[in-house]
């Protein structure tokens, strides 16, 4: 069966520090991968999505970047964190672009101080 992993589960980082969040999927090949951010009590904001290795689409211009170095690995990065980067970061995968069901990882809670 398919599983999706995210780490770390929680992270407290100072303003101006770098960030690297990793997401990996097991049990499927060539998944579509997505990064979302959720502010406390709010909805899901799509940040990036990828339909293949090295292919990244950015939804919102901001302080973050994404990379997909391997088929089932999706990384979210920042060179210098801002206070506004705090939130709940969720990775998701699907089989079909847009139309298919998305399966979410457990998420990473990031607090920037």
């Amino acid at each position: 069966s398919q599983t999706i992993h995210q780490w770390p589960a929680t992270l407290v980082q100072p303003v101006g520090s770098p960030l690297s969040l990793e997401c990996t999927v097991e049990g499927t090949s060539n998944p579509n991968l997505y990064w979302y951010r959720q502010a406390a009590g709010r909805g899901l904001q799509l940040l990036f999505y990828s339909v293949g290795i090295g292919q990244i689409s950015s939804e919102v211009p901001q302080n973050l970047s994404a990379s997909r170095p391997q088929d089932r690995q999706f990384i979210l990065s920042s060179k210098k964190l801002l206070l506004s980067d705090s939130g709940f970061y969720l990775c998701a995968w699907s089989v079909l672009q847009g139309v298919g069901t998305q399966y979410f990882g457990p998420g990473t809670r990031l607090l920037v101080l």
Partner: protein
Amino acid sequence: GQQVMQIPQYQHVQEGEDFTTYCNSSTTLSNIQWYKQRPGGHPVFLIQLVKSGEVKKQKRLTFQFGEAKKNSSLHITATQTTDVGTYFCAGPGLNTDKLIFGTGTRLQVFP
């Protein structure tokens, strides 16, 4: 741009009361999906509706897709404390690369 709105934003009910959340899209959708996010958790897929006017049931949950395929509803009969969470609808984006999630409805159930 394409938008998917949900009402109400919040709903507090007494255990045993019914609950309904409504989802409205600015564009016609090829399908509508529903997700539930428990407090502190991640969204979990509940169901997908594809056909115009389709109605599906999962125990106490009834999902409906509108005739024009631009709106949907989720109705919970006799809510329980386990129903607490935020319910999101979602539909494919115009370019079909991504899902557009609704704004969500947070349900609180008091025992």
